[in-house]
């Protein structure tokens, strides 16, 4: 898998995939998409780089240990329970704010489900990459744990 075309293609496609994955998260509440799908797509971008240039390059590109990303994602997702709990509703009840930014007619709605989706996104990216990187590397020596 060290062909020049594949390498160059991966470099060009990977950022696009990350961008599309972010779009999927944002529109996911009402339309097809969401944190899980977005996370998988984003992970596939890094997996592409790992295939084209090796796991080391993909790890450097990610900059953060995948398992730590899982932890951060879980923290974000669990954090989305807090606003509802403080306001006196059942945990994870969706709370929304409407922001009138550029178009007065259609305000931007932001809410805790989006935060939860972001957490899911990070968690999925982390878990998927942890698995992919581990399996790619494990041909010589299987590291302990997942």
């Amino acid at each position, binding site marked *: 898998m060290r062909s020049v075309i594949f390498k160059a293609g991966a470099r060009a496609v990977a950022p696009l995939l990350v961008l599309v994955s972010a779009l999927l998260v944002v529109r996911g509440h009402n339309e097809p998409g969401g944190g*899980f799908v977005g996370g998988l797509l984003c992970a596939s971008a890094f997996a592409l780089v790992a295939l084209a240039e090796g796991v080391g390059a993909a790890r450097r590109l990610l900059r953060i240990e995948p398992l730590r990303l899982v932890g951060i994602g879980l923290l974000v997702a669990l954090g989305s329970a807090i606003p509802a709990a403080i306001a006196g509703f059942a945990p994870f009840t969706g709370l929304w704010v409407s922001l009138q930014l550029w178009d007065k007619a259609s305000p931007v709605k932001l809410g805790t489900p989006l935060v939860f989706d972001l957490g899911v996104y990070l968690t999925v990216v982390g*878990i998927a990459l942890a*698995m992919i990187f581990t*399996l790619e590397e*494990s041909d010589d020596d*299987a590291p302990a744990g*997942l």
Partner: protein
Amino acid sequence: MTLLLACSIAILFAIGGYLLMRRSIVRVVFGLVLLSHGANLLIFTSANLVPLRPPIARAGAPAPEPPFADPLPSALILTAIVIGFGVLSFTLVLVRRAARELRVDDVEELCSERPR
């Protein structure tokens, strides 16, 4: 539609059950994969399968008349698939490591050699 799905589930369960009884560990794992697919299809079949009647209402419109397809089983299956995917990938890594370190791919040997 339901009959077709029921037949596929039966075939999946039959092959899965057969593989589960084999001595080779890899086949046992394949059997588990097929069984879990069968279980997922079974949940899908419980979703009141009526073609062309999605459970979607426009804003302000009344809820659609039954019968309509039930979306909940799809959500359940999605969860089950994700969980099953994670557990199975773990199982495969485990079997691979066992094959390398213990040099066995046989259920009988695996269970009889203890205590090592």
